[in-house]
Every structure is written in structure tokens, then in C-alpha cells.
């Protein structure tokens, strides 16, 4: 897939996310939109995976530790053929295949059940240790939030990854500078990230998290780093792609109304709404 195709995919995913959230009447637009390029690059360019065999032992694993960005992952999984697109419109509803936060048991293609923040990196370490034990070459990808690094467990896990030299693990930090109650600097201030992760024994990349070139390059280079886990600090914009949501903490966990969704969709180039 070339750059233009990736960009078009990202646009389509954003359209799905807006439509899903408007229909669900609850959910998290801001952190779903900031992570679109990250997850698109992983699924369309970097990861080895097979939509027709979601349990393939040799697949790369994906752990969405910031589980509230589930709509982005669901849109991508459906577009790749893991499940039918019609499920997107029952997100968060009783009886749906698609839970508010990722659930391995029901949803094809979900490798880790998440939603309680701070736990995904430990899970990813477990997957990475298992791959090493079994001498398998698959890789583990984990996406965490910047606010999520408030959780002590992230740093406990960070030490584990380095201690066991988990070079088959690559974490992407969605650095959108906001959590729920405000700017990350004003809440617990987890900065500086680069120096912290380096001090914890990680190999660090710092890139523009909306640039497919930079994401792809860092993810490919991370494969060559031996003896250490890698983290990509990806600078992003919360709510990216919808002007009235960008950089606004209010849009963390408030879904768009139908009218707001229609404005957002027009802005994203869907003149007649998304194709259902």
C-alpha cells in the first residue's frame, strides 16, 4: 500500500469512527482519532497477520492498552475482513460483537482484553516472553496513552521488558498531550518521556504520529534493534481530522450528536455520509 492509499484508508477509518460513535451514543472520539495513523500503519504495512485465521500462532500480536480507542481498531479489523462491517453500527449495544472496550472472546482479531488502563504493557511482555520461550519470530505491538503512563504498572512493565531484553516488543506511545481532566503536564506530568524511557533501558524513537513515512520507518528500524525493547513516542493531535475536536479535552469521552457527526463527516470528505 502506498502513501496515498494509506491516507485514504485513514480517512475512511475516521469516517467509520465518527459514524460508530454517533450511532452508539457514547464512546471516545479524541483518543480514537489520534491513533488512526499508528494503527493503520501497523495493520496495513508492518504486522504479519491473517484475517482469515485470526488465531494463527505465528501472527504478530497487537495490544491496544488504551482500550478506549477500540472504534479505530474495530474499523480497521472490519475493513481487513476479520468481521462484517455491519457490526460496526451495533458498537456498545446489548448483544453486540463489539464491546465498548476490546474483548478477545467475542471479537475476531482482538489479542488482548483491555479498557482498564495501565495493564496492556504487562500483557505484551507476557506475549513477548512466550515468543522467546517458543523460539518464534513473531513480534508484539502495544499502543499506550500518554495519560496512561500515570499508572505505576506501566513502569513496572517497562522494567520487565528491559530486564528480559524483549527486542521482539515495540510499544507506540500516543503522545496527544491530553488526558481526561486536562493537559498531561497539568495533571501528573509524566514528562520528559524520552529521558524516562531511555533511563528504563528502552530504545527510543520520537516521530510525528500522523506521518505514515515516519511511523513506517521507525517501526521497521525497531525490528533491527537487538537486546532492548523499543518505544516510538508518536506526537499526535487528540481528535485529529475533525477541526472542532482537535486538541479539545471535552472530546475525550463525548460522542458527537448526529448533527455534529454530519459536520465532521463532511469535513472528512464524506458528502453523503459514510457507506454503511
Amino acid at each position, binding site marked *: 500500500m502506498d502513501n496515498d492509499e494509506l491516507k485514504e484508508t485513514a480517512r475512511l477509518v475516521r469516517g467509520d469512527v465518527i459514524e460508530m460513535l454517533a450511532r*452508539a*451514543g*457514547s*464512546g471516545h472520539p479524541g483518543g480514537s482519532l489520534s491513533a488512526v495513523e499508528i494503527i493503520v500503519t501497523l495493520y496495513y504495512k508492518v504486522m504479519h497477520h491473517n484475517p482469515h485465521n485470526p488465531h494463527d500462532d505465528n501472527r504478530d500480536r497487537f495490544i491496544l492498552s488504551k*482500550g478506549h480507542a477500540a472504534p479505530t481498531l474495530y474499523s480497521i479489523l472490519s475493513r481487513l475482513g476479520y468481521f462484517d462491517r455491519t457490526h460496526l453500527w451495533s*458498537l*456498545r*449495544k*446489548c*448483544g*453486540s460483537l*463489539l*464491546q*465498548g*472496550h476490546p*474483548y478477545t472472546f467475542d471479537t475476531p482479531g482482538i489479542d488482548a*482484553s*483491555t*479498557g*482498564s*488502563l*495501565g495493564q496492556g504493557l504487562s500483557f505484551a511482555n507476557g506475549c513477548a516472553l512466550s515468543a522467546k520461550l517458543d523460539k518464534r519470530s513473531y513480534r508484539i505491538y502495544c499502543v499506550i496513552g500518554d*495519560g*496512561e503512563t*500515570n*499508572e*505505576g504498572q506501566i513502569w513496572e512493565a517497562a522494567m520487565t521488558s528491559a530486564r528480559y531484553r524483549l527486542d521482539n516488543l515495540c510499544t507506540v506511545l500516543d503522545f496527544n498531550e491530553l*488526558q*481526561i*481532566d*486536562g493537559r498531561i503536564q497539568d*495533571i*501528573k506530568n*509524566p514528562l520528559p518521556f524520552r529521558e524516562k524511557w531511555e533511563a528504563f533501558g528502552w530504545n527510543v524513537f520520537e516521530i510525528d504520529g500522523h506521518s505514515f513515512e515516519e511511523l513506517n520507518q521507525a517501526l521497521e528500524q525497531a525490528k533491527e534493534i537487538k537486546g532492548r525493547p523499543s518505544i516510538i513516542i508518536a506526537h499526535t493531535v487528540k481528535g485529529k481530522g475533525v477541526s472542532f475536536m482537535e486538541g479539545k479535552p471535552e472530546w475525550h*469521552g463525548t460522542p458527537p450528536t448526529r448533527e455534529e457527526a454530519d459536520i465532521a463527516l463532511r469535513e472528512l470528505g464524506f458528502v453523503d455520509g459514510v457507506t454503511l
Partner: protein
Amino acid sequence: MNKVSSLRSAYAETLIELGKKHENLIVLDADLAMSTKTVLFKNTFPERFFDMGISEADMMGTAAGLASSGKIVFASTFALFASGRAWEQVRSAICYPKLSVKIVATHGGISVGPDGVSHQAAEDIAIMRAVPNIRIIVPSDATQTRFFIHEAYKTPGPFYIRLTRPALPVIYEDRYNFNPLSANKLKDGEDGAIIACGIMVFPSLKAAEKLQKEGIGIKVFDMSCIKPVDRKAVVEAAKTGHVVTCEDHSTIGGLGDAVGDVILSEHPCYISKVGLSDRFAESGSWNKLKEKYGLTEERIYKEMKNLLIKVRQKT
């Protein structure tokens, strides 16, 4: 129709009221101040509010330290994270030394709805009940919430107060004032008793009214204080011979078991528990979930009728 009112707003308003009078009142939150409504306290008393970020364990430990230095601390986050994520900190740092930390846990039960299992606390009462020295309160409306926030401030030692995400029908008058350790008898009757808490009190009352129309007299107790449980009220209920408990919580370890323990040791009778039956729920609106998981007025009504039939057949 009763007026509907938010328990979380009642909590925040009471915090501000208390904060005006008491300099030693401190509020902590864990990046959910908008949802728990402690943001209203923050806006009024920024210097006595600390947003700990997404760090529930850290918040409970910090609350313990503040309380050990003479502060009365209200610490809030979602019930699952307050109880589950920070359980051992609550147990060892707060409850063991009997510190005045008032955990006000919002979004209790599966009535949280569409966020799904990762955010639905259906086991919190069970795991908190197992810890000594802590009082567990599940208010059934906004008025009772106000009362218990005052009570928690006044009473030394740890509290776990569980609030709902949905606003609830107002059951009590504004001047509501009662014994914090006693259950509230909302309806009398001689044929059976329903003991409920929180969001399930109102539907319990409705179920009892429906039974009354059929000539079946049912007592309804609002057991807002689950620990220590009102043993006298439970015995009074047990004397009818038929007790149904009802809660937005697992049937393991919650109100049903607190009541069951008393019944077993003081006045054995048949008991039936309405709640989430040893399974996880799912995402969905509360309206849909309560139908699917059996937390409705209809279900309480049926449970009581079945119990009456079962006992009649056995005796």
C-alpha cells in the same frame, strides 16, 4: 412519577457545603473529576483538590498519608478502580490503621452500561465487605447521598460509598434524617420482605406495590448501609418467612450474602437473591442490560412469587 436526581451531583454539592465549613476536608480524584463530579469542588477549592492522574493505587496511598496527618479525605474514581485496582492499598494503608479516608466510588454496578465489563463493578461490595473496619454504603437516591456524605465526614474511619452513573428517582424528602446504621422500612407487609440497596430500591418498591394489588403484603427495606448490616431489620424481614434481596452487584458476596449470613445465624428462612448471577455482563444501555440480566421490577416480582410458591409446596 418521582423526580429523578443525580447522586454524583448531590455528592459534589455536599462536598462544597462541607468544604466551606471545614478547612481539613481534602478531595482526591484520579483523572475522572468530570465524571465523579469532584471537579465542582476543584473549581471552588482548588488548593484542597489534588488530581492524582490515572493512578488509583497512588491515590489511596496518598489519601492514607493525608488522613494520618489529620485531614478528612474524600477520594473518588470509578467503583471498579477504587475497589479493584487499589484494593490492597485500601485494605492495608487505610482500613488496617482505621484512617479517615472516605472512598466515594461512582459508576458502581452494571448500570454503568455501554463502557462494558472493563468498567462495570459488580464485585466491589464483595471485596470491600471482606475488609475489616470499613463502612459500606450504597445510597438509593440523591437525598440519601447527601446524608451519608455528611455522615462520612462526621464519623471517624474509612468509608466506601458507592454511587450510580444513572440519576435515580428521589425516594426521600429533602429533610431526610435517619439513623445511619438502620435500614429504612419503606413499606410494610406480613407475607414477605424485599431487602434492596442503591438503584434496585425503587424497582423493589414498585414490585411490592404490584404484589400488594394482588393482596400480597411485602415489606421493603432500603439497606443503604451494607456494612455493618442492620441485623434487627434482617430478622424482622426473616420473620415473614420469605426474603428476596436485590442489588446491582454479583449475587456472590454482596447485599444478598450480608443478609443471608444474618438469616442463617439468627432466623433461618428461605431467601432468594436477585443480582448478577456469577457471570460478566456486557456493553449496552442500562435499560437493555437490566432486562437481559434480570434486574427489573418484573424480575423481583416474579422472584417473590416463586419463593412464596416454593415455600408453600415445601411446608
